[in-house]
């Protein structure tokens, strides 16, 4: 059975490219664009890895990560994507318990490699 990846990303063209890449890499991929629904989707989808954007409508990626870590997803690997890439964002994500961090724009190979590594944890 394929491992499952939940992509939480509100930019449809980025989500679509990521979904295609990860599908192609052998994962079962689910996409969620709304920050407010993200934590529920982690549970529903039974995600093995979450690819999480920081800037989302309704709730930020940081809030989602905080809820995951304090709830039943304390150990689910999370790859955080941010368009800012500033030191403070990385620090905040690390404090909240992110597993890996990647700044946009990234290469397709980097994303696939990172998700494979997280799925193997």
């Amino acid at each position, binding site marked *: 059975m394929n491992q499952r990846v939940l992509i939480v990303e509100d930019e449809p063209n980025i989500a679509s*490219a990521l979904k*295609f890449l990860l599908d192609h890499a052998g994962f079962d991929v689910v996409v969620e664009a709304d920050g407010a629904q993200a934590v529920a989707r982690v549970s529903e989808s039974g995600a093995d890895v979450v690819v999480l954007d920081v800037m989302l409508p309704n709730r930020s990626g940081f809030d989602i990560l905080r809820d995951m870590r304090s709830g039943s997803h304390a150990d689910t690997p999370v790859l955080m994507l941010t*368009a*800012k890439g500033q030191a403070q964002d990385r620090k905040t994500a690390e404090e909240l318990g992110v597993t890996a961090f990647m700044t946009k724009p990234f290469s397709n190979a980097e*994303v696939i490699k990172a998700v494979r590594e997280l799925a193997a944890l």
Partner: protein
Amino acid sequence: MLRSLVGSRIRELRRRSGISQTQLAKTVGISPSYLNLIEHNKRGIGGQILNSIAEALNTRASQLSESDNPTLLSDLRDAAERSTEPVEDLAARFPGWATLAAAQARKIRDQEAVISALSDRLSHDPFLSETVHGILSNVTAIRSTASILAQMEAIPEAQVKDFYKSLHTESVRLSDTTEDLAAYLARAGSEAASAATAEEALDQYLTRNQYHFEILDQETQSDLASNAALAELDETINAMLAAEPQLTGDAHDLVRAYLHTYAEDACAMPLETFASKAKEASFDPMILSRAFDRDLHSVFRRLANLHRPRIEAPQFGLITVSASGYPLLRQPLPGFALPRHGNACPLWPLFRSFSQPGQPLLADMEHDTGQQYQTLAFASSRKQLKLGENGDLVASMLIVAKEKSPFGASFQPTAMVGTACRICTRVGCSARTSSQLIQS
């Protein structure tokens, strides 16, 4: 202070005259080692020895001992950021070059402050932040999609079409965003340049006029409450501004606002009366505030522009800042530079006064140049507040050389301060927020 340059002048003149230290010492009847100490500004000199040296060097004693220029030395110390001896040497031996170096250091300091303000603006501007985020998202989508199309095979036809559509959509969005950004930067660039120039223009105008406007002191003796008096004042200020065609845009507005405030102060506190009252009250701003029924900020301003050739008064520097620390009015004191764009030393009593609005704070300060100053700081709301209303605070600080201060003892520990972190030489200061621009 006198001895700081006399020795250097003696050494320079002796060398030019081709006389050895031993020869000169013998001629004037002192030991060569003592002359050496004098020449290196480590011993004071005056009286007979100075006269003898002057005679031996074929010059006048007054030429050797002409008074130092404390502002130049202070500016040079800022420029050199190191021990005082080479600075004094440079000022004595090469006054022209020293003036140039000090002026350039001042310019660099001001420009650094402008760059810092612009950089801060770039980091915190919401439009820029949002735009950069948008551009990075567009680029990410384009890069990922283009890589898929270029590098992967057997992509279903419908999916290829979707990817081409997304490439088109993202490239149009990217194009629009970058156009907006270019327009914004062009606009912001010209605004920032004019703002910096406006403050500089105001400074230059005030310095050129030595912060005195006799015409406003003479013409605003009457009450400004009537429309006719205000119209007359406007006419006078218009005429003053017409004589300064280089003042345009923001600079014109800043100078006009300054002159209006000056005129209001001059009307409420007429020069001669104020000077006489101030002297009688030992320049105590509290007494003057009550006597003229004006707030302390106004009294500080009037005190700061009182010092002039025909009036005996201490020379005060003055800075007024908004609650964020942005300078609204600055009148530097020779030897005590005041930053033009904020980022002043946070240890100034000026900032402490924000925590005690309405309470004047008298304090002693030692500047990192070693000069001692006394300050009187006061913060208050710009307007009368209604119950429950939050005040828009401003704070002003009068600065005066300690030895010339009329205010008496402050009973507070001396604050060890600088002008701003970027040019402050203090080591291990817990309030430092940025490193020194030029490391010694």
